[in-house]
């Protein structure tokens, strides 16, 4: 079973979102044990993964749980998973849910996905892959399927080039009404393994016959790559990749933006807000890069204002023990706690960290007891936007 969600009949030809989600942790032909013998010519030094199938499953769950906030109805989800036994044990609902992520299975599902996507230019597509990868330029990545290294055909015959998928999804004579909003997420280790250095991507499996695109390929089609070219992606072993964790956090909250839509101020996540939020959320631990065509488009609405990680720093540090900080509404009135934070005095930790709903606030600092070196300050119009608000309050006059 791979078409795990199919709402096409209910939609009756209306535009919808068509997704294909692939997660590979258990590679059939890569060594499982530390000392297991293997043919390096076939395996290229790669080993099993521990969290990528689980990450893909979590992305699937997110789509399923948030389908009512998508800009178009969720139409289809095609899911291919090759989890490890540990991942299956962690989330037993994965068992039997999806077919393995082999290249023939991917070939079949990708073509069916494309056929669905091509029925209406208002359709939206969602592509997510997590597993081993290799890379040449920011516009491409190899995605290794579960049967990679099986010794059949050329060495890369069970690897798929995202560039082939991307170009195959352009509108063309064969697909004149192709979906014009396409989201791609490639959550793969894109390290330059020495064995891949001289590979030619055209040796990888060509899933789509690419017709040179029809005039004016102006899709909205960003490709979010989990790791910067030549760098390894990272994961919490047995749990989730850092990128998928950040991605779902951003889609649910951290990439929130607000503007008037159809006469109402609404919170939403878009291509641009997602890109910027991922940079902030992944800072220090990870990097990502966005390729493809990155015009802005709505990805999902948020049902309530997002929460913001607030950090409050008193300057100078000598004043910390004397400074009573308050987060007030913009007119200076107290706010109910919860959901608004009540900042303790004295601060138990500095900088002080709390969570606050996004909004405009006044931050007040009162020196207790008064000290001639420092002064009370009131800072109105503090714009607290997700994902992070690094607030500073300077109490020297």
């Amino acid at each position, binding site marked *: 079973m791979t078409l795990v969600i199919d709402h096409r009949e209910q939609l009756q030809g209306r535009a919808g979102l068509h997704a294909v989600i692939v997660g590979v942790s258990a590679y059939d032909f890569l060594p499982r044990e530390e000392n297991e013998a293997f043919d390096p010519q076939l395996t290229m030094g790669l080993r099993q993964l521990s969290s990528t199938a689980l990450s893909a499953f979590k992305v699937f769950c997110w789509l399923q749980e948030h389908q009512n906030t998508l800009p178009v109805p969720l139409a289809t989800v095609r899911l291919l998973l090759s989890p490890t036994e540990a991942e299956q044990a962690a989330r037993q609902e994965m068992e039997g849910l999806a077919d393995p992520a082999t290249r023939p299975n991917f070939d079949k599902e990708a073509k069916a996905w494309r056929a669905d996507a091509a029925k209406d230019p208002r359709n939206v597509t969602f592509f997510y892959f997590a597993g081993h990868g290799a890379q*040449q*330029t*920011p*516009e*491409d990545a190899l995605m290794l399927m579960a049967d990679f290294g099986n010794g059949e055909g050329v060495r890369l015959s069970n690897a798929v080039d995202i*560039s082939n998928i991307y*170009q195959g999804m352009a509108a063309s004579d064969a697909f004149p009404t192709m979906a014009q909003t396409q989201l791609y997420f490639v959550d793969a280790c894109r390290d*330059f393994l020495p064995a891949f*250095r001289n590979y030619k*991507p*055209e040796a990888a499996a*060509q899933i789509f016959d*690419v017709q*040179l*695109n*029809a*005039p*004016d*390929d*102006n*899709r909205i*089609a960003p490709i979010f790559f989990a790791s*910067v*070219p*030549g*760098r390894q992606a990272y994961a919490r072993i047995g749990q989730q990749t850092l990128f998928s964790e950040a991605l779902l956090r951003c889609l649910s909250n951290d990439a929130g*933006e*607000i*503007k008037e839509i159809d006469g109402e*101020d609404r919170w939403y996540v878009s291509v*641009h*807000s997602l*890109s*910027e939020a*991922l*940079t902030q959320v992944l*800072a*220090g631990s990870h*990097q*990502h*890069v*966005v390729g493809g*065509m*990155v*015009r*802005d488009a709505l990805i999902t609405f948020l049902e309530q204002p997002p929460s913001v990680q607030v950090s409050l720093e008193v*300057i100078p540090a000598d004043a910390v023990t004397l400074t009573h900080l308050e987060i007030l509404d*913009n007119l200076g009135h107290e706010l109910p706690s919860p959901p608004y934070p009540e900042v303790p005095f004295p601060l138990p930790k500095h900088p002080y960290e709390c969570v606050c709903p*996004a*909004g*405009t606030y006044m931050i007040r600092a009162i020196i207790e007891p008064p000290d001639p070196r420092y002064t009370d300050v009131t*800072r*109105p*119009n503090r*714009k607290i*936007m997700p994902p992070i608000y690094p*607030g*500073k*309050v*300077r109490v020297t006059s």
Partner: protein
Amino acid sequence: MTELHFRAFIGEKSLLGVVDLPVEVRKPNLSLVAQTVTSQRLPVGPGTYLVSARLPSGEQLYNTITVGEGEQDLDVELRPDPDEEIPISSAPISGFENLSFGLDEALTRDLEDRKLQEPRTAESQPVLRVFRGNLLQGPLTAQASADLIEPSTKPPLGEANFEVHAEPPALIQLLMAGTPPLNIMLPARDGERCLLTIRHRPDGSVNAELELHNLTANALLGFTTRGQFTQATALTSADSPELISQDLLYGKFRDAIAACVGAYTLLRQGEIKRLHNWTANLKEYMPWLPDGVTILAEHLARMGKHDEALQVLLELPDRGLPFFSDGLSYAVKRLRTYLEQGRSDVSFRVAPEAAVLLDNLRRFVPFTDFRRPILTFTGLDPAAPDETPLGDDLSTLEGLRTGPYFGHA
């Protein structure tokens, strides 16, 4: 409606005429009302607004305004938060003022690549040299560095600044002990300059960063590198003529490099219609500019004119390697596509030539740092890139020794 006029300041320094910055105007509930740039006026209705301008390094300039009924114009001064300190790394070099618009924040977190043992001696400081020539078909020659690299006399602590004079096509090479030599293309036309800043980081590693002469183009590269596409869009919108103006339609290129940066951004955004026909002008009128070829080729390909795109790409060897990473990436992608298809509608006649060009460009790909928007790759011989690190002794390598030019306490 009231017209808002924006003026951005850092300290007492006005940025008017120095750099265009993206501006956001929001209601008190944070709802986004409009986006524009500091050089443009914005009409708004009565109300209270939170206004901010973003620097590519992440800092913001702010103001809160209240617009009354019937007000004609309103000057909006945008300044840093009083509790924030925005560093102004002023290193005036012949009028080239370096404000805090660098790209380094996005690119310097990875400390593994350029790690050195504490380079405290002048002898172990990086060495600079300049190459001029065609990296794709030669010849390539080293130039006398003293003629082309002008150091700043008063750099900040731990930093060395150099104005590099371009005689294109050219690149600057940074040699550091224990690491592969770093080659950075110089996106500038004859007579222009770029600013190279070399900084020591606390762990002893060194960061090298090249800035364009046009600060708005530089800011645009910074926003794009950080994935801040909203800000990048503002700088290339129809409201921001600094980079993309009507003059381009008539072949008037005030700054061809800035036009390249704008063009690559429009290509990335899929805003093909806004490229009009000036990409053809850029290629025709700037024969020294490799990116004129890659930009036009990508533009033609997006319009479905693949035969023409391929013919244009085949002119790249005469001009050399692109200045920008996007140029290399697009060229490789398109050549691959055309050769993979092996189609009769893409001329068989040129297929061997295209294959040679693709192989030539691919030599650079594994050694290119695609995080950097200006094409940067490793290799002692820039025409034969590799990742072989240098030894500890740089004394036999000719070039400008940077040691004396670092700022000291």
